[in-house]
């Protein structure tokens, strides 16, 4: 179905040539202007009632993440406990949107979430990274198996990486086809499908023009979300890159009426930073995007900073790192 939209936008034939013509025909990005606009948005001053609302919104948009070689079932269970009850001292604190883990630990997260899992009527989803995360350097068969495996283990969302090598060497059709295939592998036996987040790894794409092209390719191929980074490459998410990706989903919506989400991941550690992202979302794509279905933060340490800020707003004074739990 989604490819029908791609055909409407690109043309009846989705070939290497037509896709290349399309992405290279996109308007350019002026780096200075983009960064200037992002800096302008970052000067918004969010105070008092707006700040309180922003902090709660941030919590509800977090994909609480652990992606380490050293991850264990115990670590994942601890992360899940934090996701369910971010601030034990304040039950009014919203839950996070999802936990994000490696595919082999997805089943642990599903079990630990229990009734809180979206599949069991709760509100927290399980996201699993797949397709030879983070480098994406594996054959197609391995990537598809990786994806299918995670979906079978109960993952609701798959965070795939694009083949940056193919992209940078100009094989846009290959990148596109791979996303289409992974999207297919997200299908469950019952006909439903895990949501697909496509990681562009913008730090490796290097230019804003490339980020715009990769965003369009991913959306055309059926991405439910476009995501900035794996968190393993520096720079990870930046405000200008996220602004640019938000402009793409906004344009896609104008063109087709379809809604695609954006997920900046990596490097967003403070509430102050996260509030700037909220402002950028609301003033670029629209307030409608401030919803877990359309915007996420891929983060781990951000949550605790937000909790400290929430406590400060509630009590009037700062507590300290020992007044929030480590996960």
């Amino acid at each position, binding site marked *: 179905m989604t490819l029908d939209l791609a055909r409407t936008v690109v043309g009846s034939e989705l070939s290497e040539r037509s896709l290349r013509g399309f992405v290279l025909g996109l*308007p*350019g*990005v*002026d780096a*200075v*202007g*983009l960064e*200037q*606009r992002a800096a302008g948005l970052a*000067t*918004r*001053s*969010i*105070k*008092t*009632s*707006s*700040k309180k*609302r*922003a902090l709660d*919104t941030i919590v509800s948009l977090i994909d609480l993440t652990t992606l380490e070689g050293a991850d264990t079932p115990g670590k994942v269970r601890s992360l899940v406990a934090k996701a369910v009850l971010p601030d034990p001292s304040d039950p009014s604190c919203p839950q996070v949107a999802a936990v994000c883990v490696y595919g082999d630990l997805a089943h642990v997260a599903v079990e630990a979430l229990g009734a809180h899992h979206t599949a069991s009527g709760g509100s927290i989803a399980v996201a699993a990274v797949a397709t030879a995360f983070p480098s994406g350097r594996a054959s197609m068969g391995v990537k598809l198996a990786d994806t299918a495996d995670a979906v079978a283990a109960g993952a609701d969302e798959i965070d795939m990486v694009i083949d940056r090598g193919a992209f940078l060497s100009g094989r846009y059709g290959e990148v596109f086809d791979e996303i289409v295939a992974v999207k297919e592998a997200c299908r469950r036996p019952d006909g439903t499908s895990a949501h697909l987040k496509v990681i562009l790894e913008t730090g490796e794409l290097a230019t804003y023009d490339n980020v715009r092209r990769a965003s369009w390719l991913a959306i055309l191929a059926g991405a439910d979300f476009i995501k900035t980074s794996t968190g393993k490459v520096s720079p990870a998410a930046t405000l200008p890159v996220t602004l*640019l990706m938000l*402009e793409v989903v906004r344009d896609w919506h104008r063109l087709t009426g379809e809604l695609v989400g954006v997920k900046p991941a990596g490097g967003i550690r403070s509430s102050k930073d996260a509030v700037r992202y*909220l402002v950028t979302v*609301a*003033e670029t794509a629209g*307030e409608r995007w*401030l919803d877990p279905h359309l915007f996420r933060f891929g983060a781990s340490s951000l949550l605790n900073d937000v909790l400290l800020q929430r406590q400060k707003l509630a009590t009037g004074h700062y507590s300290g790192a020992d007044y929030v739990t480590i996960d």
Partner: protein
Amino acid sequence: MTFLDYAPAPESRAILDLKPSYGLFIDGEFVDGHGEGFHTISPASEEAIAEIAAGDEHDVDLAVRAARRAYERVWSRMSGSDRGKYLFRIARLVQERARELAVAESLDNGKPIKESRDVDVPLVAAWFFYYAGWADKLDHAGLGPAPRALGVAGQIIPWNFPLLMLAWKIAPALAAGNTVVLKPAETTPLTALLFAEIVQQAGLPAGVVNIVTGAGETGRMLVNHPDVDKVAFTGSTAVGREIARAIAGTHKKVTLELGGKAANIVFDDAPIDQAIEGIVNGIFFNQGHVCCAGSRLLVQESVHEEVVDRLKARLSTLRLGDPLDKNTDIGAINSAEQLQRIRQLSDIGEAEGAERWSAECAIPDRGFWFAPTIFDNVSTSSRIAREEIFGPVLSVLTFRTPDEAIAKANNTPYGLSAGIWTDKGSRILAVADRLRAGVVWANTFNRFDPASPFGGYKESGYGREGGRHGLAAYLAPPAATPRRTAAGAERSIASRSASGGLENETSRADARTTISETPSADTDTRREGVTATRASRSSSKSASKKGSAK
């Protein structure tokens, strides 16, 4: 309530320590004015902020005399490096008092605090830092060795960037060794008076900077004062003409920075999202109260619809309201008169058949406000495409080819600035080369830097401000007759101590005269657009000597 209804985030006024009334700043002191005082009001609330003195003929004369005295006795004799020290000190004080100045500026002018805080005041400091660096390097300003200061500069500035225009005027004048009498705009005198406090704080010798507040009449007296050597004016073309007429035939040099009706040209291959930002910044920055505003959008027909749609969507996110709120994008119109003019021209635009569209925004009950407005399908003959509106009103015109864009862009009596939006570097260069505008921005708009000269073609005025060129407006090449000047004195001490400084001056000036029959001073004056005969020049010199002999 939605997230986008940001809670109020007002900048505190507590930092301001305003006096209930301000006098004129003459000879290092605040003194009473003899004209009829007036109140300066906040255009956002119409509340009176402070009572301001008005200078009459006597006050202007006192100020010019003080400036002449300071010029003759102190400033022209001081070494360039010492003048630089004072300017550096002023720059640092501006930085130290930046928040206070920003709040005062927004209060008095109506511009959003984010602009006064992030644009105006930092640029003011930058201007003083920049020209402080030039003060001891005038030999390298490109005017030949040992250029002379002109003497007393009478400077008149507008209300759109009150403190920034003050910096544009005072910093180069002082660096070059002149002393100044400055008249701020009637509706925005506040920051100039705070600047006078900074001048005191910096210990600047008395009389080097004098500030005389008042209305147009006070400005006229300043322009016409016989002992003023240089007139620098920023403001409307009508007043600029009047000034040019008033000083014609006198020895006075003049710089005029007047109106504009800039074309912002968007080609179909432009970086579209950034172009939208640039269009917004071009015309809605400072409520469009910008002489170099990109008030005529020339957009290629093939992307016309897309650009206008995106522009409307973007304008809908602009926040109009309290200038002191940190989230305000569009502040108040500076005065009731200006609002009246904007309304009048907008109504004419509508009557002439252009499609009017305004962003929906709540207009506060008190104060002067005008919602960001676009006129689409404007014809080149329409008044809103030809006259400067000086408000948040954009006229959209289309073109088909680069040649047509250039022809339409140049088809205006003005020529202050222009913008080009395209991804193609070669096109930027080719088009910029053919635009008759003093400043051409490529893929950006309304960006200022002290190192970059600024000024106009045609009815936008003459002379340049900023950069090395800005110094030329306050310097003359070595005199044909020996005259002890700032740069000359310095030179004689610094590098020519072996031979007598004055003799040296003479011989060099003689060498110059032999090259050309035309005295260099006259050539220079003509370049500035005013014909002055050699006779009038020398007679004025004796006049100025008379003025100072007391």
